[in-house]
């Protein structure tokens, strides 16, 4: 068992892009180090250097003060370093048990994987998160059939299953609900007491202050600050990250009262789909309505069915007239847009250029043959209005950081000038700076009379930004929070389905 790992002056290039120019990190057994930075600052690269997924171009790694070289993930793993990957390292078609024990399967005398032992050991690991699962999680379930939060839990269990001395948690809480996060933090505290070292990569300030002992801040590939967490506050950290202090101040949109006069934009009655069991609500023009609740309570299906992406039953009225929105093309024609939850899979064509991504839903506008010059101008205008940082419109989207990539997803739909915007967790895995910009943008759009339906896994966001919040629980709207009842406490209570403090909808 090792006692410390130290990365010094690490340099890493991807092609022409310098991802890390001077990365430093010190981790000792028995402490939690928060690795913080805006998107694109090099956090993920830093963790990939420590766990051997990428080989560093400069600088050095010291394990117990002796230089080491990790040429592959195997090498780092042998040294007891485990990683919970942000993108998950699970094989979808394989079972929970097979995934957790991959490469370390217990074998019988004939060299076969011992199914009984593997099942039993998996059950033991699963019990660490007992009580936080929404489904009846079984070791023989294929991972592909699990909801995102349970996949994330399996990824965590997989990392700790070989009893490493060091665990890297890369955005491990992003898909978890509050109960699951609490359980994870209990486990982290236990690991810490057992003498494990934990590297915690996260965007969530509140979580960092809850569990971290130390912090290390990256900015543009450089470590710009490190120290004890007790010596710094949220503002101080943010300042280190972006050198701009006031990003958390976002004004709430125009007062709710003013909007009750407006005509109804969207009316939904008894909407049913896969995980939806009869949802009814209405939204007025210019409203910014939030959808809250624990993860996987039907929020995603609600947005997808409104956009005509999945089959649904029930009544949907748009601007007073009943409509059948299927396929999404119909919804788009009616002035709707959906910013999907998984930007890598659903929102963007990663290897294609920024221009193509911007224009994908809008090409029809540019005639035949395409008026490329006009398309380019419109795209760069949109890019500029979103403060998109890019080398040129011809660069592939894969060259952008998470926050900037999300701006492309937003921009691609804003170019169509939608009247009703559906957002599925648009700030997930986005740095604080971009978050603030997105908040401003949403407030501005509502001011222009656009209507927004906004699901977020970040309770603070919902409370700070929305006029109203509909809280989903198990496929129905459990409560509606508005005005003075819209507080974080009420939102969390309603999410857990334990109280009616917000008043029934």
């Amino acid at each position, binding site marked *: 068992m090792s006692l410390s790992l130290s990365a010094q002056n690490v340099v890493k290039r991807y092609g022409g892009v310098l991802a890390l120019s001077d990365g430093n990190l010190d981790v000792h057994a028995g402490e939690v180090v928060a690795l913080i930075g805006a998107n694109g600052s090099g956090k993920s690269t830093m963790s990939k250097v420590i766990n051997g997924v990428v080989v560093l171009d400069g600088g050095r790694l010291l394990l117990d003060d002796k230089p080491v070289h990790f040429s592959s*993930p195997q090498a780092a793993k042998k040294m007891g370093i485990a990683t919970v990957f942000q993108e998950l390292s699970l094989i979808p078609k394989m079972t929970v048990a097979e995934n957790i024990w991959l490469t370390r399967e217990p074998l019988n005398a004939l060299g076969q994987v011992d199914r009984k032992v593997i099942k039993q050991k998996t059950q033991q690991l699963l019990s660490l998160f007992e009580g936080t699962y929404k489904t009846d999680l079984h070791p023989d379930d294929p991972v592909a059939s699990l909801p995102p939060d349970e996949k994330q839990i399996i990824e965590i269990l997989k990392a700790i299953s070989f009893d490493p001395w060091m665990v890297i948690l890369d955005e491990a809480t992003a898909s978890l609900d509050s109960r699951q996060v609490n359980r994870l933090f209990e486990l982290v505290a236990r690991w810490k007491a057992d003498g494990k070292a934990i590297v915690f990569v996260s965007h969530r300030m509140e979580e960092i202050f809850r569990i971290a002992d130390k912090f290390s801040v990256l900015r543009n590939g450089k470590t710009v600050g490190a120290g004890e967490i007790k010596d710094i506050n949220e503002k101080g950290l943010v300042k280190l990250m972006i050198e701009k202090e006031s990003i958390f101040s976002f004004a709430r949109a125009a007062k709710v009262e003013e909007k009750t006069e407006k005509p109804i934009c969207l009316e939904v009655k008894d909407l049913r789909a896969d995980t939806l069991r009869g949802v009814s609500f209405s939204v007025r023009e210019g409203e910014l309505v939030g959808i809250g609740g624990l993860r996987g309570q039907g929020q995603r299906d609600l947005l997808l069915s409104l956009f005509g992406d999945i089959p649904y039953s029930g009544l949907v009225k748009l601007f007073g007239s009943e409509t059948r929105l299927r396929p999404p093309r119909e919804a788009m024609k009616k002035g709707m847009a959906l910013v999907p939850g998984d930007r890598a899979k659903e929102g963007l064509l990663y290897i294609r250029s920024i221009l193509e991504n911007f224009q994908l839903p809008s090409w029809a506008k540019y005639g035949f043959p395409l008026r490329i010059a006009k398309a380019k101008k419109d795209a760069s205008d949109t890019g500029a209005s979103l403060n998109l940082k890019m080398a040129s419109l011809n660069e592939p989207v894969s060259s952008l950081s998470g926050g900037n990539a999300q701006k492309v997803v937003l921009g691609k739909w804003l170019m169509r000038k939608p009247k009703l915007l559906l957002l599925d967790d648009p700030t997930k895995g986005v740095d604080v700076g971009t978050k603030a910009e997105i908040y401003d943008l949403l407030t501005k759009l509502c001011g222009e009379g656009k209507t927004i339906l906004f699901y977020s896994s970040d309770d603070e966001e919902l409370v700070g930004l929305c006029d109203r919040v509909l809280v989903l629980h198990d496929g129905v709207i459990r409560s509606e929070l508005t005005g003075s009842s819209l507080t974080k406490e009420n939102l969390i209570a309603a999410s857990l389905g334990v109280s009616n403090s917000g008043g029934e909808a």
Partner: protein
Amino acid sequence: MKRLNWNFLMSRYPAFFPLILLVLSIAINLFLQPNMFALDTLNGNMRVFLPLILVAVGQAIVLLGGGIDISVGGIVAIVNTILATRVGLDGTPEKMWQFVILSLLVGVLAGSINGFFIAYLRLQPIITTYATSFLYGGFALFILPNPGGGIPAKVAELYRSTTPLGLPLAFYVIAILLGFWLYVSSTRYGKFLFAVGGKAEAAYETAVPVTTIQFSTYVISGFMAALAGIAITMLSGSGNAEIGNAITLNSITAVVIGGNAMSGGVGGVAGPIMGAITLNLIQNIISFAHIDTWWETLVKATIIVVALATPGVINLFQRRRS
């Protein structure tokens, strides 16, 4: 259970649909050829089917690992021409067995060349094996430009009419293949194979030796192709550098009919074996049905396309209904 869930069946038992196809084609064949299960007929059929079965098993392993091997026909041809030219009609059985071992080594070598390019140099599997298929096929032509040569009749007879316990030799080979697969798929190697084919990047991050596994699938495929080459030589008794031409695409078709995903990581070996038998039975059915030679390819292709499309069509209807 009132309503059997098709999707569940298909994902849990990938060999379920090929089994239906197999039973169906056996039934039709039996109708056209009532003595189908007589030992002579059965053995006569199975010894013809065996080469494709062997190649399909190798192909299945490659596809499971996320690759594809288009060079198997070339490997079959090399082995066939080596045996037919080096052993000869008047060769001794001892000489034959020596060259059988050499043939297997040649198959492993050819597979290693594929594996080296694909796993270590990270070239595209489809392009690489397409290229090496000409390399191997060309080499076979170099060994034996015109059809001819042969192997001792005694050895050929051994393959054609060995029927231990009144069952065709091929049945025992299939049983060995299935038993071996049953074992391999439950070992660590089996899990690695599914992991690499399922999502190579995630497997790499989990410290699975991805390149070694990819390399090994081509070696296995080369070995199986060599076995098939030996079988096909003993069946025909002579050499022909173009003998392997049809077997490549047939093996891929057999694997896909057998329920394995082209994208890798899903399926097994039982399905592809059934797929290979089905494919051969379809050929038989067509010749029994006295279909004009002109139409034969068209009819055969239509049956295969329908067979391949059926699961998709059933899925489509299921989606519509829900």
